[in-house]
């Protein structure tokens, strides 16, 4: 579905990723964990070429999506981002109406029946019941933090991506909103391949099927979540999971 092969990345002269090879399974949730600055956010942002928006970023290696290297010459990053959606750490709805937040992506990607698709996406993100009366009256910024993040998920889902990248989607939310998002992730994996970066190991254990542990820009260990949390192979992984560092 989606995999990386020896993916390296540099911010100017500083190397942030070092030959990461990783494969994500269809309709599974993969959690990326690791201490701050280990490269997990950089990694997830390089999966849909979002890192290119930062000046002086250089990548090497391949990211294969459906067998095609998305970093190959002639591949339009706009097209890549359209198939590989993203939810960001801080909820970032557009300062427009709830409806427009979703309709924008639909329109620029040439969808018809925008209204139906907006409703569908909001239902998938478990937000429809809460906002259906305010679609045009409230802006995305009028919602609560948890609702904003679900709106961002809905916005990503509206254009029917195949992969959903989530960069610490719950780090700015309270426990109740976090629980809702986590439930939602469980629902979403039925249709999408989900990659989630998290700081919270309990969360990784709760929501993911596979876990990848990053440290200092390298992939240290990757495997089944349950196995990784119970019997990690690498001593570094064990130290991190048991809270000895990080």
């Amino acid at each position, binding site marked *: 579905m989606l995999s990386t092969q020896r993916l390296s990345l540099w911010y100017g002269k500083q190397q942030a990723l070092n030959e990461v090879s990783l494969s994500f399974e269809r309709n599974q949730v993969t959690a990326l964990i690791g201490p701050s600055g280990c490269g997990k956010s950089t990694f997830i942002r390089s999966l849909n070429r*979002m890192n290119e928006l930062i*000046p002086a970023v250089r990548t090497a290696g391949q990211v294969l999506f459906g067998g095609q290297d998305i970093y190959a010459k002639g591949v339009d990053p706009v097209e890549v*981002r359209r198939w590989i959606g993203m939810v960001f750490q801080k909820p970032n709805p557009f300062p427009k109406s709830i409806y427009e937040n979703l309709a924008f*992506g639909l329109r*620029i990607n040439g969808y018809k029946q925008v209204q139906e698709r907006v409703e569908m996406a909001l239902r998938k993100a478990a937000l429809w019941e809460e906002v259906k009366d305010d679609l045009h009256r409230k802006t995305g910024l009028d919602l609560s933090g948890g609702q904003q993040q679900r709106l961002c998920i809905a916005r990503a889902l509206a254009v029917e991506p195949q992969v959903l990248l989530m960069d610490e989607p719950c780090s700015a939310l309270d426990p109740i909103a976090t629980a809702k998002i986590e439930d939602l992730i469980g629902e979403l994996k039925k249709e999408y391949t989900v990659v989630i970066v998290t700081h919270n190991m309990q969360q990784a254990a709760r929501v993911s099927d596979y876990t990848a542990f990053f440290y200092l820009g390298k992939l240290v260990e990757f495997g089944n979540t349950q196995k990784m949390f119970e019997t990690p192979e690498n001593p570094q992984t064990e130290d991190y999971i048991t809270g000895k560092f990080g």
Partner: protein
Amino acid sequence: MKTQPRPAPRRQRWRRQKGALFAFLAAVALLLGVAVVTALIISTGVNSWQLVAMHATARTGLALSLRSMDVSQSIDGRRTFPFVTAAQVESNSQAAALGMQQGDALPHLLGRPVFSSSDVWQWVEDMPAETTALPLAWVPKAETLIGSLKAEPIPGQAGKFVIKVSKVNPGSPAEQAGLQADDVLKSAGGIPIEGARQAWQAIVIAAQRGQSPVTLTVERAGQTLELALQAERRGELPLSRNAWDAVVEFVTHLDEPRYPEHAGLASAVLGSIYVVLVTALIAVPLGLGAAIYLEEYASRNALTEVLQVVIANLAGIPSVVYGIIGLEILARVLNLGRSILAGGLTLGLLILPIMIIAAREALRAVPQWVREAAYGVGATRWQVVRHHVLPYALPGVLTGMILSLSRGIGEAAPLILLGAFLFVTYLPSSLLDTFTIVPLQIFSWATKPQPGFNTIAAAAIIVLLAMLLLMNAVAIWLRNRYQKRW
């Protein structure tokens, strides 16, 4: 647990004093601002208020003009005596109805001598608010007052003349006083009569000095006679001192070279509006386009670095220099002449760098996560700019544009160099017409010596400030109304 290291005492003292220093600087800035506003109010506000009196006087049909009489020997230590005449009396006006004619003199306003037109306006201004009539005295012009005079040279005395009455106007005050043809006029109210034209002036000055009737010393057949000449007439002019009317007249009248009470700002205001429109037309698209390119598209390389330095430096170039560019390139090479188009383009070049900088600031204020969010759903760069960055930055962009346009509208120097006219008595009707603008009109009036022009220069300054304040108010309104808070 370790104790926190204490900050060095010197540092602490500086931290305390820093607050006081900044408070002091802020207070100085505030005081300067207050001083500037006060000076402005004193110099223009007080000055320009006479505009109302000027227009009230002018509305009666009078245009006042300053004259003076010269005598060969000083009287009371002076040899020049200023007085005021009605340079114009409009037909069918209230002044004409009173019997005033063009050329009549206004020696005094019921006891208060009039030495200058501004004495009349000051008097009108000082009248109690409920007064609606201006009581005044006037001396009819020489032909009406006397008839005709002739000067005969005195043999052997170069430059000396005998002033003889050649014809006494029937029914004139002179005839009533007993003046006859061939009488020789010697003096009026003690002022020697030395010229045919000066004779009447001497009578006016005598009236101005309070003589009524004026004692006219004449020689008839070797005898010296003293005649009592009832020189002045009296009457009342109805006055309406409506400030709003005065302002409307002022901004709708055309310029007038001689009579400030009739001069208006119309062509300058219209010229300023046309010029600022051309300026906006050139500077807004270019400025916004350049800002979007630099902020959203350009990658950081040597070229864009150079471009930024160039733009920052262009913003600091003295405005006169842009005038030279406008004159050489626009007026001469492109053959646009001293037209509105050339002026507008010159000011457009002048404010372009400011506009780019302002627009870039506004674009930069749109947070990066908005762009990321839009890219995240598969938007192209242009879609991100068109649907998100630009709309969210628009209040800031517009504010910057209006503020830089208002900088442009107040510029005089570049257009002086371009050769814009200082005196225009028509309304410009096409972009290739010559023109003047409000700052130049102010400059033109402020440099005129005649009384009253300083008043209308001050009034024009207030009009200019009102235009600027209006633009700035729109900018502030836009900002407050549409500003996004992130």
